[in-house]
Structures are given as structure tokens and as C-alpha cells.
């Protein structure tokens, strides 16, 4: 990193690495940092203390910092920033880094490191952070001298936020933060080895258009990549122009309005009957920013047996990784969709008449596969709570979730009409994600309604962040669907282990109302179906405080439909 391209306004005064650190953040416009101090980063913390441009949010566990930065990043499209100390600070952040890697979330994670002279000596709080994080980052950098720091930070933000986004770790030894140099921020990340492809190949776009024009049973399958590349408008325009049915992955919800008649719901393991059947019977599959993971495809040799696949993705390695694409188009989803829409509008093509296909999809949709019944004198059905949440927020809230049944029910029942409103952990499936992610969302959108839908098991994985919420006055609404079980685990045990509930019962639960109160929040316990609606109304109206709403729900409810692992889309378990 010696080919520094210096910015135009040279200064003469020397700054320390710690000062340079904050200056670089300001240069990047990265003025919210989630972190936790410790020995290796104390110079940096001292510097943060002296200035006012960068806000530091003190979490209660470094995992929380990473998830909060993810919530911030996913809801804004900006790069999220994390700052933790060496050793345990770094290892605690690893789950969040891996989560960001799996879901392509742009993060820059700064980890303190022991002094360069001590590296390799098993020094106090030394871990090989670059080695530990290597398999779960887009890139990582150990900064060995202060002269390398500005370019390392410039590159980190550039790499994290461009192409297929992802986390970048910058490991900074303590002595680097005290060395000094004349600072100037490089204008150019100057990387010959990193140049993501953005424009789609014109020939491939023409091939895709020809295939689309000949389709009889087409389907659009779009994922998180559409949201990352802010391609929701282009996707909507393309979908409306073609008149094709569209399904979204778990990560892609909100990229196309969930209330639109062309939307045939989420697909995959807990997707709708019509979406999965339409996938199975399709003859042209247009995949955009989606990666054909196993929760989507089920058994690969039974997946989309009749389809010609057009696959649009900015990451070439996602194409034909799991499933062969006939027309691969490498490029940014937004640019490619725009080019494809322009091509289709060119007058050379007529859109196929697919009314028979829509008729068939309508038949499948009659199964109403997300339906549930709420007996108003019985136990609260979790779906009922979410249905009410949807209705009362007008589909307009930011909703984060943890991992389990409750997550799938939000995905099925909350009709997102805008991108970046649905914030969940899809790829890694990290319990504990929901609350800290909601903090990041709320900090980025102080006046917005932010709800964290969780389960009594998941919430306990990062419950300490209730304290952070108190410190920063974050009025998050926690919707705890308390079924006294690790419901998703119990469901698998019902289906595949003759209902032997090994370790899935959540014994010794805390009194969540008192717990919330002890952190200085409001708590509420809701046990009867008839109380759900008024309780939610009250909860959502409390704009100035966090409310922990503990909904005691039916412990036996399962998520349907379900494609068992290793089954194909036309082998769904319906109820």
C-alpha cells in the first residue's frame, strides 16, 4: 500500500493514527459508530471523546454492535461501522460479521490489535483477527503503520459498499493509533484487483429479452440483491411491463409491493403454495439478485425441471453455483433491469399472452396456504398478532426479526410495500439479531415505527441490549411471540423426530414484563386473543418509549406450508 494518491488539500500538521481514524470516518460520512471500548482502542476512544462529528453508540456486547450496524446499513443502504477492541472484542463481533457476510451487508468493522511489536507473541488480548475472520469477510486488512491507515480505510469503505456488498475488517494495532503523520485522505481506493462488473453484457440482455418474449409459464424470482442495489423501482417497472408473476425470497421482501396482484408471495421452504408450484412448473425463470440457496431450491434435482434460467447478479460466483443458468447476466441489478426493460420496450418484442398460466396460478392460490384460524376464546395464534401488527402499522413499519417460526410468520403475513423495511438474518439465521438490529434501524430513523418481532428464546441471546435502548432512548416495540418453545426446533422434532422435544422447551423463563421494567422500559403481557388488538394499539401509540410486549401464544402452532429438507417444490406439506 505504498502508492498513496493524496487528496488535493495537503496539510502540514501531523495527526496521530487515532485522530486520522476519526477524520477518515468524517470523510466517509460514517458518523454513527457502534462499539465497545478496550485497551487496544483507547487512543481511538479518547479521540472520539474529544470531537463531535462522529456519534458513538455504546452497545452491551460486541455482537450487538455488529448487528446494530447491520440494521443501520440494511435500513439506509449506507455502510455500517463497528469499533471493538482486540481479542474478545473481536471474537464477540465475529457472529455479526459472519451474519453480514451471508446477507451481503456493507459493514466496516474496526478491531483493535495489540502493538505490532507484540503480534505473534500471544500477548494479552491478542487473537489473529485477520485469520479468524478471513472466511467470513469480503476482505480484511491488518494496518501495520500509520502511513497505511488512510488508504486502508478508504479501501475498506469502497470494498464494503460496492459490487456485492459485505463486511470488511480493518485490524489496527495500538501503536498505529499513536504514530503520527501529515494526514490527507486518498481520493481513489486505487485497486487494480477489485473492479466489480456493473453493466450487463448487451448480448446477454438481448438473449434474455428473446427468452422472455417466448415464455409461456414465466416467473420472476427476486432476492436481496435487488434491495442492495436499490433496484426496486426498476424491478417493479420490469414486472409490470411483462405482466409476469413475481415471488420474493426471504431477503427480497419489499423489493416488490407485497400487496400487488402480480405478487404471488414468498417462495422456498415456508413459501406459498402458488409461488413454489409456479417455480416448479415454470418454463422461463428470471432470477434477479437471488442465489438459489438450499432453503429456496429444496432438492436440486427436482428444482424447476422445465425452466430456462435467466440469472442476473452482480456476483459472477452466484451464477451457476447451485443451479445452471442458461442466460447469465453479470451486472448490477438496477442497471441490468433498466437495460432489459428498455430492450423489451424497443418494439421488437411482443409480451406473451400468459392468461392460461395466471389461471393455473389462481387455482394454486386458492389453497390460501398461509391461512390460520383464530378462536377468540382459545389461545393467541402468533399469526393473528402479526396480522394485527400489519393492519395497525399499515404495512409501513420497519420490522426486524430474530430466527425461528416467528420470523417465517412475519415473512408470510406482513406485506412489505417498500424495500429496506424488513430486516432479518436470512443466510446465517442468527438468533439474537432482532433487538440490536432494531437499534441500528431506530437510530437511523429516529421518528419511524420500529418493531422487533422475536421469540422468547431468541430475545434472550442479546437481551442485554435493552440497556443500550434505554441509554439512547430508542422507542423500539418488541413483539415477543412467546410460545415457551424454540418453536422452529420443536416443529422439526414434530416432523422428523416423532415429537421428542429434546431441549426445545424453554424452561425457567424470566418475567419479561419485570425484566423490561428493570431496564427502565414498559412491559406488557397479553394472554387473550381479544386483548391483542387493543394492546397493539396502545403499544404502537407509545412513541417515546420502548415497550416489551410479551404475547403468550399457542405453543403447538407450526409454520405451513413446509418443504421438508431434501424434498422438491411440488412435495410441500400443507398443514
Amino acid at each position, binding site marked *: 500500500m505504498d502508492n498513496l494518491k493524496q487528496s488535493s488539500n495537503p496539510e502540514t500538521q501531523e495527526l496521530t493514527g487515532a485522530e486520522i481514524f476519526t477524520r477518515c470516518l468524517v470523510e466517509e460520512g460514517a458518523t454513527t459508530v457502534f462499539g465497545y471500548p478496550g485497551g487496544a482502542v483507547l487512543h481511538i476512544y479518547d479521540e472520539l471523546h474529544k470531537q463531535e462529528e462522529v456519534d458513538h453508540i455504546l452497545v452491551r456486547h460486541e455482537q450487538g454492535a455488529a448487528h446494530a450496524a447491520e440494521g443501520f446499513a440494511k435500513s439506509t443502504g449506507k455502510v455500517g461501522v463497528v469499533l471493538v477492541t482486540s481479542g474478545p472484542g473481536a471474537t464477540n463481533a465475529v457472529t455479526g460479521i459472519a451474519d453480514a457476510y451471508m446477507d451481503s451487508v456493507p459493514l466496516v468493522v474496526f478491531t483493535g490489535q495489540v502493538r505490532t511489536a507484540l503480534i505473534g507473541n500471544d500477548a494479552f488480548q491478542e487473537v489473529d483477527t485477520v485469520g479468524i475472520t478471513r*472466511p467470513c469477510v469480503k476482505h480484511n486488512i*491488518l494496518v501495520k503503520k500509520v502511513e497505511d491507515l488512510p488508504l486502508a480505510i478508504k479501501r475498506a469503505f469502497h470494498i464494503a459498499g460496492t459490487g456485492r456488498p459485505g463486511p470488511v475488517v480493518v485490524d489496527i494495532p495500538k501503536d498505529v493509533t499513536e504514530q503520527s503523520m501529515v494526514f490527507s485522505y486518498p481520493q481513489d481506493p486505487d485497486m487494480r484487483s477489485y473492479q466489480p462488473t456493473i453493466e450487463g453484457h448487451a448480448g446477454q440482455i438481448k438473449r434474455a429479452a428473446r427468452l422472455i418474449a417466448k415464455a409461456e409459464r414465466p416467473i420472476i424470482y427476486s432476492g436481496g440483491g435487488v434491495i442492495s442495489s436499490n433496484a426496486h423501482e426498476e424491478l417493479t417497472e420490469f414486472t409490470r411491463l411483462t405482466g409476469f408473476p413475481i415471488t420474493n425470497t426471504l431477503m427480497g421482501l419489499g423489493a416488490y409491493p407485497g400487496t400487488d396482484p402480480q405478487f404471488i408471495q414468498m417462495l422456498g421452504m415456508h413459501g406459498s403454495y402458488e409461488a413454489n408450484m409456479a417455480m416448479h412448473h415454470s418454463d422461463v425463470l428470471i432470477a434477479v439478485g437471488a442465489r438459489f440457496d438450499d432453503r429456496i431450491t429444496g432438492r436440486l434435482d427436482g428444482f424447476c425441471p422445465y425452466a430456462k434460467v435467466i440469472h442476473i447478479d452482480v456476483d459472477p*460466483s452466484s451464477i*451457476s453455483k447451485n443451479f445452471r443458468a442458461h442466460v447469465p447476466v453479470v451486472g448490477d441489478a438496477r442497471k441490468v433491469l433498466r437495460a432489459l426493460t428498455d430492450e423489451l420496450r424497443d418494439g421488437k418484442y411482443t409480451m406473451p399472452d400468459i392468461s392460461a398460466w395466471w389461471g393455473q396460478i389462481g387455482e394454486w392460490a386458492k389453497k390460501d396456504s398461509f391461512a390460520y384460524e383464530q378462536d377468540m376464546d382459545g389461545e393467541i395464534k402468533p399469526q393473528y398478532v402479526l396480522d394485527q401488527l400489519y393492519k395497525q402499522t399499515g404495512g409501513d413499519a420497519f420490522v426486524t426479526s430474530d430466527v425461528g417460526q416467528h420470523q417465517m410468520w412475519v415473512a408470510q403475513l406482513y406485506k412489505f410495500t417498500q424495500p429496506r423495511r424488513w430486516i432479518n438474518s436470512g443466510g446465517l439465521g442468527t438468533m439474537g439479531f432482532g433487538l440490536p438490529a432494531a437499534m441500528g434501524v431506530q437510530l437511523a430513523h429516529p421518528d419511524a415505527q420500529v418493531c422487533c418481532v422475536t421469540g422468547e428464546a431468541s430475545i434472550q441471546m442479546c437481551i442485554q441490549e435493552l440497556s443500550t435502548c434505554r441509554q439512547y432512548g430508542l422507542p423500539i416495540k418488541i413483539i415477543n411471540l412467546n410460545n415457551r418453545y424454540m418453536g422452529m426446533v420443536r416443529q422439526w422434532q414434530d416432523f422428523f423426530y416423532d415429537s421428542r422435544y429434546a431441549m426445545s422447551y424453554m424452561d425457567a423463563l424470566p418475567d419479561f414484563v419485570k425484566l423490561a421494567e428493570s431496564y427502565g422500559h414498559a412491559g406488557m403481557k397479553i394472554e387473550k386473543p381479544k386483548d391483542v388488538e387493543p394492546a397493539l394499539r396502545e403499544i404502537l401509540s407509545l412513541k417515546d418509549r420502548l415497550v416489551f410486549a410479551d404475547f403468550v401464544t399457542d405453543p403447538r402452532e407450526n409454520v405451513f406450508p413446509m418443504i421438508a429438507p431434501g424434498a422438491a417444490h411440488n412435495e410441500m406439506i400443507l398443514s
Partner: protein
Amino acid sequence: MRRILAVLLENEAGSLSRVANLFSARGINIESLAVTPTPDETLSRMTIVTFGDDRILEQITKQLHKLVDVVTVVDMTGQNHVEREMALIKLRLRDEGSVDDLQRVNKVYRGRIADVSALCYTSEVVGTSEEIDAYLAAMAEHEVVEVVRSGPLGIARGEQVLSIRQNQ
């Protein structure tokens, strides 16, 4: 199927482990890997030999290319290229009279004696991997006590040059 890849990457600490990590994380074995800096010292060049079908190779090539440190990846398998490997082979000859035998085999395979001691001869052989295999087979009646092989190096024939702009 055997594959040979040529990779140019930033000559930085950690670059090699990124590549090695990638193969193990994707469950693909590296048969051999040779790496050294190029005349442009900011770059290293690797020659990797691995096994896999077209799909695996396509995926590994894309994944390699995705590494931020990697500048160029070329699959040389199907291209016209020169491949050479070097081996150092320590032998205990069957009897004193076998030196002729050794020299005869060295002549065939362009080997030479690099070291001699009271009990052992060390020969040095450069050739394709098959030639080295054949050399070892030819020495089978002697005791091969130690073998060290460099793994193949590869370079395109003709005018084609592996450069930072060339990619597949």
C-alpha cells in the same frame, strides 16, 4: 479431471492463505501450489493444480477472482502451455555397480546428480509431472529414501502473456 490454474495476486501478507482457505472452505483439494513474487514485486504468481469437473472449476475460478487480492485467474488446462516440475530425489543404490544405471536413467530424463554422500545419491530432475513419475518408476529397484517435488509451473506457449488485464 486435472486442472492447472495460473493466478496473479497482490504480493501481500495473507494473500496466500486467502487462496488456500478458499479451496478448503469449498471442499476442494489443492494437488499442488507454487508461488513466488514476479519481476513486478507487488505481484505474486501462483500455479495451482487441482481436480474437478467443469462446474467445480468454473466455481473455483469465480471464487478466486472474487478475492480482493486476486488480479488475474487463467485456467491453462485447455490452453496450449508448457508445464515443468522439479524434483530432488535421494536414492540408496542397490549396489555400487548401479551408478551406471543411475546415469543411464538421468540421461533419458535429463536428470543430474546434485549431491553424493557415502550412502546416498541425490538427483535433480526437471520435466513434466509424468516424466518425474516415470523417473521414479525407473528407479524403483533402488531404494528411494526421500522425494521432494516443486509441483508444476505453467506458462502459455507463444506470445500470450499472463498480465494484470487478462481475465476469463
